[in-house]
């Protein structure tokens, strides 16, 4: 009896109940319990107190867990012959249906996103190329608009020459060097503008190294009014020269390209006096 008491007081029974013993100790405790009713009763006491202690510390699981767990057990039931009629379609099967559904959903969503992205990129590219076309068109329209504006202002200037009463027209006659030459100059002392009429220009065509130069003679001093060409390519009707308020006479000489500081007198082709 002393042995039994010492055995109970060793604490092995408590550890046995808590499942904290080696397999050998387990067998030993079970053998002792089978042999001695006192140990069996002691074990039962310990078990009851631990069970009560667990109940005191119980935590109620969520309500929906009951359904879930019971149905998972019922599905297990299907293996047993006693319950093989209806529980087939409960529980786990629903779960397996749900999973591929969400998987599919994400697959489709991903595909849709990808398709949308491709369409967007295509739209962006086409819009961008249209924008480029528009820019090119705008640039060409702007340059032709500039050209028209220039032409318009030029014609406006020419028109002034014809309508403005202050303009005087002077026909410069050919010199001995070139008797057939003839140039018409329009000059407005009020507006200080000088134009030459290229349509009625009658001079020999100049070469690449020479240009005609217009001179205004003020007193006896020649003042350069700029250079011009006699060329078939030049289609402009009139050319505006540098301005002067004073002029007693106009003369044109053939000079090296770019003009000279003072006229080369033996190269004079036309001369006209007021």
């Amino acid at each position: 009896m002393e042995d039994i008491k010492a055995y109970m007081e060793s604490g092995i029974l408590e550890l046995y109940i808590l499942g904290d013993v080696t397999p050998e100790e387990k067998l030993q405790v079970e053998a002792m319990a089978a042999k001695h009713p006192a140990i069996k009763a002691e074990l039962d006491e310990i078990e009851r107190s631990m069970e009560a202690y667990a109940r005191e510390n119980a935590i109620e699981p969520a309500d929906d867990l009951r359904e879930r767990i019971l149905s998972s057990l019922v599905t297990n039931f299907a293996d047993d012959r006693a319950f093989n009629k209806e529980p087939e379609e409960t529980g786990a099967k629903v779960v397996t249906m749900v999973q591929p559904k969400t998987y599919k959903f994400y697959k489709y969503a991903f595909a849709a996103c990808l398709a949308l992205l491709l369409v967007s990129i295509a739209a962006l590219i086409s819009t961008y190329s249209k924008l480029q076309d528009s820019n090119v068109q705008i640039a060409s329209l702007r340059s032709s608009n500039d050209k028209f504006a220039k032409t318009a202002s030029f014609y406006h200037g020419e028109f002034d020459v014809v309508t403005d009463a202050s303009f005087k027209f002077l026909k410069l006659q050919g010199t001995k060097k070139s008797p057939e030459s003839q140039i018409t100059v329009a000059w407005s002392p009020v507006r200080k503008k000088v134009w030459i009429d290229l349509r009625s220009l009658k001079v020999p065509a100049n070469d690449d190294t020479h240009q005609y130069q217009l001179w205004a003679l003020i007193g006896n001093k020649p003042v350069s009014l700029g250079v011009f060409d006699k060329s078939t390519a030049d289609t402009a009707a009139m050319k505006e020269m540098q301005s002067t308020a004073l002029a007693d006479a106009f003369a044109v000489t053939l000079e090296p390209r770019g003009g000279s500081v003072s006229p080369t007198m033996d190269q004079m082709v036309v001369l006209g006096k007021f």
Partner: protein
Amino acid sequence: MSKKRKISLSEEELVLALGNREKIAIEALYDMYSSSLYGVISRIITDTATAEDLLQETFVKIWNSFSAYSAEKGRLFTWMVNIARNLAIDKIRSKDFKNQNKNQELENNVTFIDERKNTVYNPELLGIKDLVGTLKPDQRSIIELVYFKGYTHVEAADELGVPLGTIKTRLRMAIMLLRKHFN
């Protein structure tokens, strides 16, 4: 907290019904023991979803291996709570679980749970709160470690820094007090 009708059987009836694989036994088993088992699991595993999964695993295992239970060897709850505790301890010691819970202090779990969840009100156990006063802190901590946290008494001795013999004596004294209290 109030629940719909709960099925309750005597332990002998329940064991018999489970042995006969009766469907009602499952419901009775759940209604009678789920909260006690869940209380133990929740103290080992704080994550609710994992704890719920473990409760399910526990019931599946109880159901599938019920033939291994023998009423001569002990009470049903003792057998079941060992299944629950072992599953929970296996889980908490598994590699992936450790990784996902690296920052959680095991030590804080008990108080944390006590604050977060209400324990079940049970009229049979009225006045049970005196129990906290009945157990000395070192007795309470040994029970918490071994019963609720899945420590072996060797690990508990290490944790508390006391000799193995002391642990055994302390555990026995604590359970003696519980016995006195519940009788």
